[in-house]
């Protein structure tokens, strides 16, 4: 996995500026759509440091996303300065509990273990009274620095999500340049060699798993904040598979791939919904095309 250079980042910054200017020229619906894409991008980006960098395919991440989102519901009306760190912390803790067991396994077993743990979290919120029911619940948004009027919400949440995604991207961009990031890349290429050269592979993977889980929790927190609604659906493994799809669609070989993939998938969905009721058909076709033809993703085609 490679990072963008200064020119590429400048291009991303320009795209962010276009999104940031949306309140001046676009309708409420499009701003909500942009928020959806931004949250999807955060979720997929959180998984990229596991899948793209360390080569670990996890199906538990929807679970961490859900833990982050449900934290907002469980805390009740608090302040965003409480709910945000709490969401990251609880998702990080969930990842720290699941990670050591899941990471004992490799390859197919890892995939299956994360699938089962993810479903375990799903059942936790689906079947027990903790989650407020199988159909989901509305929640009170935590208070922010200013009171936000209803008409201003789409614009405010668009900007909030944009800032959060940008910070997450910059943080991961920095992380991938550190020794830790390089070591993760080494694991993807040849785990045994990394072990032989004295790296504590298990520990590196676990740290990546926890960081990735906490960031997925952050994405879940932003989703709960934006929608004021949580449901067990968001913990289902299909949601994890969608994040993997965004990664593949955008490019597994580049850090910013998931962002491109998230926007592409959101637009494809929006288009699909407008032309047919059978939108899973379109989504399935897009995945087939991506897997069969687009092996390096939209953002990675030049390499």
């Amino acid at each position, binding site marked *: 996995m490679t990072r963008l250079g200064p020119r590429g980042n400048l291009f991303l910054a320009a795209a962010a500026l276009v999104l940031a200017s949306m309140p001046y020229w676009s309708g409420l619906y499009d701003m909500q759509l942009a928020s959806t894409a931004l949250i999807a991008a955060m979720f997929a980006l959180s998984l990229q440091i596991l*899948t793209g960098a360390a080569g670990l395919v996890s199906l538990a991440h929807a679970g961490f996303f859900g833990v982050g989102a449900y934290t907002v519901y469980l805390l009740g009306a608090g302040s965003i300065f409480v709910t945000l760190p709490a969401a990251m912390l609880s998702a990080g803790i969930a990842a720290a509990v699941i990670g050591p067991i899941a990471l004992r396994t490799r390859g197919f077993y890892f*995939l299956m273990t994360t699938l089962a743990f993810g479903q375990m979290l799903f*059942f936790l919120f689906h079947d*027990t009274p903790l989650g407020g029911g199988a159909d989901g619940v509305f929640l009170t948004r935590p208070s922010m620095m200013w009171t936000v009027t209803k008409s201003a919400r789409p614009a405010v949440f668009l900007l909030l999500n944009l800032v959060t995604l940008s910070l997450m991207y910059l943080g991961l961009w920095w992380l991938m340049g550190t020794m830790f990031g390089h070591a993760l890349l080494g694991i993807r290429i040849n785990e045994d060699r990394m072990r032989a050269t004295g790296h504590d592979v298990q520990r590196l993977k676990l740290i990546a798993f926890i960081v990735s889980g906490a960031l997925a929790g952050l994405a879940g927190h932003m989703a709960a904040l934006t929608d004021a609604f949580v449901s067990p659906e968001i913990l289902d493994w299909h949601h994890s598979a969608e994040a993997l799809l965004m990664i593949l669609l955008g490019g597994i070989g580049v850090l910013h791939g998931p962002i491109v993939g998230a926007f592409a998938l959101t637009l494809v969905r929006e288009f699909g919904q407008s032309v047919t009721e059978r939108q899973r058909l379109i989504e399935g076709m897009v995945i*087939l095309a*991506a*897997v069969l033809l687009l*092996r390096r993703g939209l953002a990675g085609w030049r390499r």
Partner: protein
Amino acid sequence: MDGFLVQIINGLQYGLLLFLISSGLTLIFGVMGVINLAHGSLFMIGAYLAYVVAGITGDFWLAPPAAIVGGLGFGAVLERVLFQRFRNREHLDQVLLTFALILLFEEARASLVGNEFHAVAVPALLDFSVPVVGGFAYSAYRIAVLGICLLVAAGMVLFLGRTRVGASIRAAAENPEMVDLLGIDARLIHTLVFAAGTALAMLAGALAAPLQSVYPGMGDSILIASFIVVVIGGLGSVGGAFWAALLVGLIDTLGQVYFPQIAGIAVCGLMALVLSWRPTGLFSRA
């Protein structure tokens, strides 16, 4: 106490159905190295096939043979057209390919038969109850399903253990490269295993149709359970899948009856427990 006994039989019967599904799954992974998340959808297709066949002909007994024949053909086509190309691809690609198949199968099902829940009547021949120990009555159809599953399992053991083709399949599950070197037609083995796995999953779906209602998400819940069976039993191990299926079937059934809120969590927890003790399953040699 007698109710408990009935639940035990229910659990064994569910476990045996799980075995039909997961034995194919474990062999497909062992022999081809392919993760098939759409395996649960094949179960769903088998159940809907039973609903349609029983609805049109009025005779449920045509459904299981139809599921087997249809499954063999469908599986062979899927393997030749898609899965063959994905044998040596990364897990991520395999996950997404089979995820796409789930979406397409579900959409095809929605277009053809709709999204409603359907009941399939228990065949008239077996629509009575048999007294079991303690004066408790048990559905004859459930006993028949138990018997059919045991027969299939026995047939599979004989086929894998006593025939030349069976030996090749076991060899391929053990060491795929070696089979290529020995001059066995690996391509044929792959198609055979995939077709048989598909037929077994669809047969399980057809047999399960009168036991539970036929509904859109039924493939997904059975998928998770059968993957847990495969992981606990050890990848590629049919014997492991058998015992693991009975274990998961019992725990899930008893859990649903006595602790409905944590049944789903318990089965996943069981897998976590097994994996933290033996990371490659109970019955794997590695």
